[in-house]
């Protein structure tokens, strides 16, 4: 009798689950492959379950590194990046990454620990109002209040993060909820009556746009990150070829359209090429696909595309008409809209003169840089491009090197480019390259960094060593915060206030301290030899590339100026 009772009891016990069990089960259901997480008091119940989990857990050396790695992973894999941070400081350390992902529409599902329910609001140890802090910087956030809601909330979070315009979703889990034992709850359906993203375009708007294309004399496509997020690059190519439309990219859109295509114009914006910026200024029909008319792209709105009828395809209706008045709005997924446009098979516009004009601009005013004794960063990027046949994944930090990479590395395919565009987060590049390499383990990943940004996340070198990720860390070292220095040179009378950082550690020795091979490069010849040697190796390498410290990024549009007011277009 007694034995039977004990057996029944133990059977009941094995059927009981904790909140942490439910969480991991839900993550497995979502086919999560990798978690970027950092343990701490409030997430201990979750970490106890992770101890037995098959999901790969990557331990960054700072939570901010973890969330940037998740962003890199999301950008390359197209799947949501998953992050775990503990309560209080763990949660506040991921705030920058959340904002960055929100600005650049990257799908993330982020879990934060929270102090136990009974002490929430009492300023408990490591307590922070995470919901309050993250509401404006997440697509949505939750605090779990009942253990039985965990499976539904996780399901909803993944759905919200990846559908419509992607973005970060945060789930705050009080410690007691993760530790509570309960019977397995009944399955709950997703309940989101207020969330129905429009995916299919309105047929009448598509027809209107198609007719406008046929009538246009000077049409251009402006393709943004929406093309990449919507996996619409092959449709974009097909449509551009069908209608013979020149394609201009935003910074974040690079790779959406092959850079070696005869219809490719280049990147537009503050440091975009002459042909792209003039193309936008002179066009009579501007078809924006998945770009948000950011101020770094448009320059002064007063002078932006003054002659153009603007059509805008975007999955987020709030982006349409936000900055630029739009005549033909199309709320839809880029892929679906482009498919419909291809189906229309409209008469291509009669615009051979326009195409000639664009080609003339391209030939007359290409990106250019001067020759000197010092190593030019542009030269280095051209070499990296050639040595990798334009097929590497390029991850950048923020600043001059980022612009040079965007200008000189010719992206031929989608999902080869990871950069922090909207928020411009220094320290993003190194950890993001970890996520990118994990998402595409076989491909050559080059982390193009500045000496400033590298020092904001140096600690993540350990992770690269630990996982033996064959990332090529290329530090474009100009002993300064280059973009700040450039602005001070041009706009602040060469008063270099705190932008020069001549005192630096030896990056080569630093790499060695982390067990990573490091090399210093001072000349193009050295670069030539070393690139040949290291780019195909299967281990991490750090390259301290000493570039011309006075080099500036050109062409450039000064803040407040229009796209047609570029400086530095001619040598």
């Amino acid at each position: 009798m007694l034995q039977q009772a004990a057996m029944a009891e133990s059977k009941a016990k094995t059927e009981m689950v904790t909140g942490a069990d439910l969480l991991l089960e839900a993550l497995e259901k979502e086919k999560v492959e990798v978690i970027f997480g950092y343990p701490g008091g409030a997430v201990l119940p979750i970490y106890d379950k992770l101890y037995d989990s098959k999901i790969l857990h990557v331990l960054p050396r700072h939570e901010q590194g973890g969330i940037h790695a998740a962003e890199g992973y999301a950008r390359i894999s197209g799947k949501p990046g998953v992050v775990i941070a503990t309560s209080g400081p763990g949660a506040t350390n991921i705030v920058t990454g959340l904002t960055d992902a929100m600005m650049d529409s990257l799908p993330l599902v982020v879990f934060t620990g929270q102090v136990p329910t009974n002490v929430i609001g009492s300023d408990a140890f490591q307590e922070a109002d995470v919901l309050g802090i993250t509401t404006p910087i997440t697509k949505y956030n939750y605090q779990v209040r009942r253990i039985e809601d965990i499976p539904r909330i996780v399901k909803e979070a993944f759905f919200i993060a990846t559908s419509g315009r992607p973005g970060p979703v945060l789930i705050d889990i009080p410690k007691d909820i993760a530790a509570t034992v309960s019977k397995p709850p009944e399955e709950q359906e997703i309940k989101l009556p207020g969330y129905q993203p429009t995916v299919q375009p309105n047929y009448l708007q598509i027809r209107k746009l198609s007719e406008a294309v046929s009538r246009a004399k000077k049409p251009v496509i402006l393709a943004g990150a929406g093309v990449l997020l919507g996996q619409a690059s092959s449709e974009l190519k097909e449509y551009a070829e069908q209608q013979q439309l020149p394609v201009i990219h935003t910074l974040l859109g690079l790779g959406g359209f092959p850079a070696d295509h005869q219809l490719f114009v280049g990147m537009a914006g503050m440091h975009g090429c002459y042909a792209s910026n003039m193309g936008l200024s002179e066009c009579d029909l501007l078809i924006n696909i998945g770009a948000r008319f950011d101020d770094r792209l448009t320059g002064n709105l007063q002078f932006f595309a003054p002659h153009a009828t603007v059509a805008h395809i975007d999955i987020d209706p709030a982006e349409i008409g936000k900055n630029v008045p739009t005549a033909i709005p199309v709320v839809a997924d880029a892929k679906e809209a482009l498919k419909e446009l291809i189906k229309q098979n409209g008469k291509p516009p009669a615009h051979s003169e326009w195409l000639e004009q664009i080609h003339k601009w391209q030939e007359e005013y290409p990106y250019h840089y001067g020759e000197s004794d010092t190593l030019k960063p542009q030269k280095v990027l051209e070499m990296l491009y050639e040595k990798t046949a334009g097929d590497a994944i390029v991850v950048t930090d923020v600043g001059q090197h980022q612009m040079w990479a965007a200008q000189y590395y010719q992206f031929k395919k989608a999902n080869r480019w990871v950069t922090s565009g909207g928020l411009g987060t220094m320290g993003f590049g190194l950890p993001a390259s970890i996520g990118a390499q994990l998402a595409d383990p076989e491909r050559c990943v080059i982390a193009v960094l500045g000496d400033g940004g590298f020092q904001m996340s140096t600690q993540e070198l350990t992770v690269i060593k630990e996982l033996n990720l064959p990332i090529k860390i290329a530090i474009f070292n100009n002993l300064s915060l280059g973009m700040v220095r450039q602005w001070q040179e041009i706009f602040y009378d060469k008063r270099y206030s705190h932008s020069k950082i001549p005192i630096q550690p030896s990056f080569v020795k630093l790499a060695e301290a982390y067990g990573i091979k490091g090399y210093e490069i001072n000349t193009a010849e050295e670069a030539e030899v070393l690139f040949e040697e290291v780019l195909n190796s299967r281990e991490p390498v750090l390259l301290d590339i000493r570039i011309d410290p006075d080099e500036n990024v050109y062409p450039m549009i000064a803040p407040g100026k229009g796209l047609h007011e570029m400086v530095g277009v001619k040598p």
Partner: protein
Amino acid sequence: MKKIISMTVLNRPGVLNRITNLFSKRNYNIESISVGLTEQEGVSRITCVIHVESDREAEQITKQLNKQIDILKVTDISDQAIVARELALIKVLTTPQTRNELYALIEPFRAAVIDISKDSLVIQITGESDKIEAFIELIKPYGIKELARTGTTAFPRGTQKPVNPQKTYSIV
């Protein structure tokens, strides 16, 4: 210009915070906001009165609100035939001499006195914001001790007369 935005929202924790957060994040100017339950369980109605520079700005606000996952429906009802009401409680100083005068003012506004003490009385008035403003102006000289306004709550009338008939017609 003034706009009245009416929305239905899921009655979830933090929903009001999401909305006010959005207003501050996007630098929108809010005049009043009122929240209350509706006939549907778990659904609340929020009515906002906002100041905008242009119709485009109002459209942008509506779109940003619509993007919020807890918001079910957003309507800019400024150009519709609507019923809009606000309630105000006003504590006014009185003396035996002014009390009767005040009663005379209250009557045409269909306000009501809901509390009287030795030297003050509390007036309750409902109506559109303009009416309440006019009444407050009138009462001011007597000395307002305390004032509480609820903000406008509103929805469209059952029958909509065409407010802005289309002036241009196209035959294609």
